[in-house]
């Protein structure tokens, strides 16, 4: 409980100081040396463990590498062959299609459901803390454990869902991982897991809306729905924009839960993340995997830019 409260406080303070940035700049950053002392180690860390591997990965995507940790045997012929192969790879098309579906599901259901839950919890006086914990809880459980949990729920023989359906009179078992249902089966746990994450961000944003506005609106005779429509949603817009950007970029990286539930892209459930991992660790096609990683980064940058343009934050 204490930790959760601290988490809310930190987000609330971050949002507050973002507005007060100019004042902070003028006071805190006068002396540059201490700043450098603290920044340089982190900068070096980022260079060594992020930027050098990142550029090396781009280089690797042009080389021939037949196993993790194995030295490249030279450049591919032609050097861009992995990128050509990507365009002709049917599984890659499946992965891109599924990833875009995942992005839509993430934005609509994760952020959407989180918004509804946040609005509901914000409007209750008793038990709000309880619901905050309940909705946030899936975030703290590891994705692998959740994958195993949902595997048992969707299990063909003796799975929870099939047993329930049997109890209600269904005579045949449903294969929840068959091609027809696989995408839905994969997306439900992913969406469910991250609702709590956006819920916390949104509820912190809601806490920052001054109560006086609601009181004034209530005195003016505004109904609860009108208060949400004309006060809450407009003032929450910037926070929602942040959520959408996080959701879109996050969906591009989804890996662990789908991989546990659908190993090796079972039933055409490839995502860009799982397909990249598959080539790096299962087929030893490391250079192709690197090329997919480059594509994921490029897509991430393009989509972030598009989302930032479409959901441009407003100044109030």
């Amino acid at each position, binding site marked *: 409980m204490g930790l959760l409260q601290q988490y809310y406080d930190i987000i609330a303070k971050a949002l507050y100081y973002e507005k007060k940035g100019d004042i902070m700049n003028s006071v805190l950053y006068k002396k540059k040396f201490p700043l450098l002392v603290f920044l340089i180690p982190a900068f070096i860390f980022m260079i060594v463990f992020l930027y050098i591997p990142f550029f090396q990965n781009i280089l690797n995507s042009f080389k021939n590498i037949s196993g993790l940790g*194995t030295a490249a045997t030279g450049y591919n012929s032609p050097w861009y062959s992995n990128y050509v192969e990507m365009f002709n790879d049917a599984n890659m098309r499946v992965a891109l299609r599924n990833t875009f579906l995942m992005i839509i599901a993430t934005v609509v259901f994760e952020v959407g459901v989180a918004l509804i839950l946040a609005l509901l919890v914000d409007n209750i006086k008793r038990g709000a803390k309880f619901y905050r914990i309940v909705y946030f809880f899936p975030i703290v459980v590891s994705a692998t454990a959740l994958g195993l949990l949902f595997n048992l729920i969707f299990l*063909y023989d003796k799975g929870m869902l099939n047993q329930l359906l049997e109890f209600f009179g269904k005579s045949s078992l449903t294969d929840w991982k068959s091609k027809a249902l696989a995408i839905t089966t994969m997306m439900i746990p992913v969406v469910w897991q991250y609702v709590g994450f956006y819920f916390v961000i949104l509820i912190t944003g809601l806490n920052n809306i001054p109560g006086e506005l609601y009181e004034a609106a209530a005195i003016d005779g505004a109904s609860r729905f009108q208060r949400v429509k004309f006060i809450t949603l407009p003032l929450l817009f910037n926070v929602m924009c942040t959520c959408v950007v996080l959701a879109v970029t996050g969906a591009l990286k989804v890996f662990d839960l789908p991989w546990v539930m659908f190993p*090796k892209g*079972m039933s055409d459930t490839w995502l860009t993340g799982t397909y990249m991992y598959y080539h790096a660790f299962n*087929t030893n096609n490391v250079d192709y995997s690197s090329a997919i990683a480059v594509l994921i980064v490029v897509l991430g940058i393009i989509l972030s830019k598009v989302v930032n343009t479409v959901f441009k934050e407003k100044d109030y």
Partner: protein
Amino acid sequence: MKKLIALALAGAMVLSLAACSTGGNSAKPKNTTINVVTTYAGNDGNAQNYQDAVAAWEKESGNKVNDASATSDESFKARVLTDFEAGSEPDVLFFFNGVDANPIVSSGKVVSIDTIRKEYPDYASNMKDGMMGASPVDGVNYSVPVNGYWEGMFVNKKVCEAAGVEIPGADTTWEQFLDICQKIKDAGYAPIAASLATVPHYWFEFTIYNHLSTTTHNVLPTGVDSVQGKGWIAGLGDIKTLYEKGFFPDNTLTGTDDETVQMFIDGKAAFLIDGSWKVGGIESATDDIDNFTVTYVPGMGDRKSTDIIGGLSSGYYITKKAWDDPDKRAAAVSFVSYMTSDEMVSKFAQVSATALKKGVTVDESALSSLAKDGLKMIAGATGMTGAVQDQVPTEARVPVFDGMPKLVTGEVDITEAVQQVLDLLKK
């Protein structure tokens, strides 16, 4: 003055420490810690035997083992190869002796048995040299095997009884097997427990074997029109037929191996092709071990049903790093010799194949009926060949293993898939 005293005291301390250190080394040889990596971990049937053996060796030799064993899967293989590439290989490694070990043999980072025997003439002298599993790189023995494997068809007797069919035996043909499967299916059971999505390789081996023979099976195809190429295409076609006839479980394209094996244990499926390691798995998963037996996979053509698949696919390597270290050389040799002694191999191998000159010493009275049936099956085998997949690198298996669901549903043409394997092999 104080400075002089402090300097003198510091000097005396350094000298005394140096003397202690030198005296310690010359007085008594220090015990060694060796780094060992094996696949005896997780749900491996011999994981506990391995732990016990390591503890016993540590007690006997006074040395220590820094163990980093892990379950054998593709990630494990990648980790081992990466460790060798990065120069952080273990001192002793229990690893595959087929193409998977080619990079470490080619790099010269493991020591051959002949080299070791020059200094330790009795090293692996209890093994048949011809069965130790020579490296595909140069035909030289580098590893000392422990327990080998065989593959056979496990049977749930009650399912066969309920369906009114005879348990397939040494004389059962493929056509008769198809009739048996049909009767089992008609009785409401799944004839074959197999996950074509995750573990299609047992059926891959035997259906191909059925179109080849003991002498031609373990040879890679040179083209789709070669004897082996045609065998592969026909064999994969047989799996497609089995799928189309509905002989696999309904969720064979989406279920895991654990799920289909559980179906077999629960009496919902009749047959399961698996390896000798499954004997222990079935024993621990059921209270009624007498309900299970193991028999030959029905054959056709040149392959008799009694021609089985088996061999010794893994062994203990001593790395050059350990060999070149005077402290670790003797400890590594002692460890491998201990782990591959007749007594230890018998304990690990039980009903599976070994390279021991004297054979295993197994107390049959302590074996389950299923384990005894396994021994009988081996005794009645008319021929044995290794699994051809062991010659195919992981990346080249993709079109027929990971692609199996698309092959049996007809989304991908079988001949094209085999051609893709051959293209990847050429790479």
